[in-house]
């Protein structure tokens, strides 16, 4: 297999991979008219795989989409240079698994409860669906639209109940305990978080489930613990109009106060997340409409670093599972990439251009270099961070309806937006 007898000129190539399907390190002479398909066949044949696996190929940080000759002439690479081609299992076209229609817009979805989907909707309800598209639970938590929901990881001993944290336009966030084990799952709101004076934009939790971060339009970030207090920590506000609403709310909702407030943003904070990974413990990131991404030391409540990207008001922020890269979606139709490994980072290290406003980003544990973004044109796109020129694949969820939330766990991508929620399956990926 060292070289193929062919009239077509060939090029020396070395294959590398991070998948379990490794070739012996050896130089191949590849005919220049080969494309992805032939290369994939070559690897399948060389490894003698029982079931053919399609592969995608990365050359110089770019996914190979043309023949090698065209690629070489476009890049101006010399004929003698040995190319290093990395291959990974190619992403199969995503398939729509199920649709979960909602009456109102879905602002946030989560797939973190096994075998279940959680959606938060603009009518103030949290809904729990199982994989067979049945509505398991419908809890009216807020009077106002819910903007975001997250599932607080519970200690392993506690298997029958989960805590959902939801943030809302009504200036509070709520912790709702959901009991899944019983025949009919029940939910009860156990605590409300009182700090903000403007609608909340997001809520997120850390990996251990001990702390929460809320971000709000008033420029503040609240840090909370997840313990349920025995008594109210915040007094009821006066105001006759408020009183009426309080009366309807059950008395067992405990009002919690934040353990710290992070103040530095000059405009609306759109997302605040805890840093992933062990070395970055106690750190948090936030982004906002003041076009900054800030790094916080949560313990001391100090802003450690500010990355200012001029004129890029940000809508969503996420971090890759290995904690190396931050991604922020902004209203100028870009998703900025911040490589945290670069010391003294002052600007974005790359952008992913979208045709419309990207509204949400999701990463998954399984796909280390891949992200899913949803945008206002109703299309979700799968990107590879190594090749940011174009999306790897895109899937049209709704026509002309906005995608507002994505979540990606395993090979399941939950997409929420104007048309309810849809579940798609992405197979493969490195």
């Amino acid at each position, binding site marked *: 297999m060292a070289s193929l007898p062919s009239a077509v000129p060939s090029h020396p190539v070395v294959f590398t991979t991070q998948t379990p399907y490794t070739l012996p390190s050896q130089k191949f002479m590849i005919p220049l008219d080969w494309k992805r398909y032939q290369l994939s066949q070559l690897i399948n044949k060389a490894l003698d795989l029982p079931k053919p696996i399609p592969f995608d190929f990365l050359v110089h940080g770019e996914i190979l989409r043309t023949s090698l000759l065209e690629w070489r002439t476009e890049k101006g690479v010399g004929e003698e240079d040995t190319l290093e081609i990395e291959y990974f299992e190619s992403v199969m076209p995503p398939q729509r698994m199920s649709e979960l229609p909602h009456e109102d817009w879905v602002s946030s979805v989560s797939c973190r409860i096994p075998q279940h989907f959680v959606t938060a909707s603009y009518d103030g309800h949290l809904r729990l669906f199982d994989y067979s598209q049945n509505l398991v639970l419908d809890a009216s938590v807020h009077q106002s639209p819910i903007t975001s929901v997250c599932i607080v990881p519970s200690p392993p001993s506690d298997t029958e109940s989960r805590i959902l944290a939801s943030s809302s336009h009504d200036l509070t966030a709520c912790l709702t305990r959901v009991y899944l084990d019983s025949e009919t799952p029940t939910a009860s709101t156990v605590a409300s978080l009182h700090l903000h004076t403007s609608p909340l934009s997001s809520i997120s939790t850390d990996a251990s489930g001990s702390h929460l971060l809320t971000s709000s339009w008033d420029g503040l970030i609240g840090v909370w613990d997840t313990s349920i207090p025995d008594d109210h920590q915040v007094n009821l506000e006066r*105001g006759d109009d408020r009183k009426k609403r309080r009366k309807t709310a059950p008395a067992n909702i405990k009002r919690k106060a934040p353990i710290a407030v992070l103040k530095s943003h000059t405009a609306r904070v759109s997302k605040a997340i805890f840093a992933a990974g062990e070395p970055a413990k106690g750190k948090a990131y936030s982004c906002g409409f003041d076009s900054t991404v800030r790094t916080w030391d949560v313990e001391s409540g100090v802003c450690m670093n500010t990355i200012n990207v001029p004129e890029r008001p940000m809508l969503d922020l996420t971090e890759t599972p290995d904690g190396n890269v931050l991604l922020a979606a902004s209203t100028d139709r870009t998703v900025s990439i911040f490589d945290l490994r670069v010391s003294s980072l002052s600007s974005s290290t790359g952008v992913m251009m979208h045709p419309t406003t990207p509204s949400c980003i999701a990463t998954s544990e399984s796909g280390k270099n891949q992200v899913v973004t949803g945008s206002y044109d109703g299309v979700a796109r799968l990107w590879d961070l190594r090749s940011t020129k174009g999306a790897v694949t895109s899937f049209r969820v709704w026509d002309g309806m906005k995608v507002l939330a994505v979540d990606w766990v395993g090979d399941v991508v939950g997409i929420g937006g104007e048309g309810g929620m849809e579940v798609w399956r992405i197979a493969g990926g490195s």
Partner: protein
Amino acid sequence: MAVTGLGKVRNKRKQEEVEEVEKGPFAGAVDLEMHSEDEAEDEDREGDDASDDGDVDEFPEIDAASDSDEESDEEGEEEDADDLDEEDTLDENSDADSDLHIFPKSKKVVSNITGQTKVVYPEIEPDYDSDSSTEDDPNRVGNIPMHWYDDLPHLGYNINGKRVLRPAKGDELDRFLQTVEDPNSWTTAFDKNTQMDKPLSAEELDIIRRLQAGENPDAEYDPYEPTIEWFTGKGKEEVMPLSSAPEPKRRWLPSKWEKQKIMKIVRAIRQGRIVGSKPTAADKKQQFYAIWNEPPSNQPPPLPAPKPKLPTNSESYNPPEEYLPTEEERKQWENTDFEDRERDYLPHKYPALRLVPAYDQFIKQRFNRQLDLYLAPRIQRVKLNVDPNSLLPKLPSPNSLRPFPNYKSLQFVHTKARVRCLSISPDGAWVASGDESGVISLWEVNVGREVKRWNLGSKVGAIEWCPRLDACFLVAGTEERLHFFIPPNISPAMLTTTQSILAPATLPPTTQSSIKWISTSGAAEDGPILTIELPSASGLSRQLTWHRKGDYLASVSSSETQGSVWMHQISRRHSQAPFKKIKGAVQMVLFHPTKPHFFVATQRYVRLYNLAEQKLLKTLMPGIKWISSMDVHPSGDHIIVGGYDRKLCWFDLELSEKPYKVIRYHSRAIRSLHFHPTYPLFASSSDDGSIQIFHARVYSDLMTDPLIVPLKILRGHDVQEGLGVLQIKWVNKQPWLVSAGADGNVSLWCS
């Protein structure tokens, strides 16, 4: 008159000949430019002459011209005849030579056919004697030095090419004998051509005699010719009129016109309107005086004329080599225009001074001196060397002026009716849009999700959010009513403040006004918390505007009466009409952002009032047929005014009452204008369905003009029933624009 005309023609022709002759030698070397102006002058002069001729025609008693005509004798008539025949000037020369009688004398005969006199020349008989040149000597060598033939046996050649032999010539003795023998020998002279003595003719002898006597050699010359009376004396008077027309009456009647003119002057003198000039002092002064009697003045003497520059080496006829131009320099010098040359000569090397040719620029130089005398510029620049691109204004590229909105991020749809108005909350988070079916929707700027809807049941004409930061509410204007709404989900403290502003527990003392303020405290969630009822028949409230402190609200209704503008004070719950009488229908009102000034736009004019002093400060004249919209720059020194006739006027309030700039770029009427509160941007929307974004930078330096750069045309709204984008508003703190269209869509445009 025809004869005088001919005479003129002849004179002119002679002039031309002279000019031609003068030009002849210089024709190659001189390149004079005759400017068209001079020619025109010449023509004018000729035209004047012609008109003079006409005058002469009218007054034949002034007969200087005809005298000059009489001057020309027969010979002159001949010449005239020649001129008529368009013959060459050579004939004139031959006429001038006619005194020498080379040709036979002519006779004047009365023609049998025409009855005119004509000149008849005697017939020439072509016999042997008719031409004296034929009997000439046989030697045909011509006028050459005859000593060339000294050593030869012959003298030359005859007409047939045969040799003419030298005649036999005796020696000195023979010659002497010949003089003795021949009695005529003393009247002979040696003829070189024939190399022999020839006897002189009687005429030649006569000439010799006359010369000896000191007389005129011409025998025919008579120094004592009798005087010929050409012009005077009996029979020489002008008796013939030039035309047979009867003498016109005006010739002998005194001119009425002149009389009128004179009488006018006489009357003016009598009435003292014309005063004769008094004898000046200079006249009275002694005319002659001794110039040396006065001491010399101590004035500085007049400046001497500037010295001409000394010639340099390069002007020498034999300059050193380094001064000589190379071939390229020479070519370049020749290719440049005359007025662009650095120096007006090229150094040239001549081996000797005698080889230096005549100065070829002589005529040119004289001509230039003439131009100096006429005070005319020596150089006339015909074209300007201006790069047309340099005349275009230097505008920075739009990419350097980011951010500005350039794409439609999301769209909010009012399904029922066209959206007339929208307003954005001061924190830039919420949009309230009202449509013609009476629905006001409150939605998030960034998600576009409606969170609250109020249904008023009647057309919503205007919505404005209160600019106060400690309270949060919005006003919507409908038919004869203003409704105040509190949006949901505001913090309790803010809600309390807002409620105390709009529905206070203790109402302030009611004032005398025809306007009712109705507060509905309590269930303010679903309906308006406060309603102001404007007087009936005031129509739809077309526009609302807040004072920056959020206490005063001005409303404009669509009725044409004086009750269309109202000023509402929220804290006193009082409304008043600021104007007793307004000329024209008020289109829009605006508060000045910093001063207590108030802009009122009527149909044609924008007036600026000082509210504190209650007087009119300024009337701006945009020159627009019908003003549709205006906005004040956040600095307060500039306003823009848009009209239904597609024009947009930019006013600098410090500068003038006329617009600083008038721009017309929309293809249909302008509907709405808005300055961004913080970014240097403004936008205009139009009935053509487009929104145009401009960069408008205003400098605090008064000397620098505002910079207006067109940035982007946003399209996306449909035109329905001739209406396009009805209102646009910028989002505070962000370079985003929200636009409401007649197609029921409200769009957010992001950068």
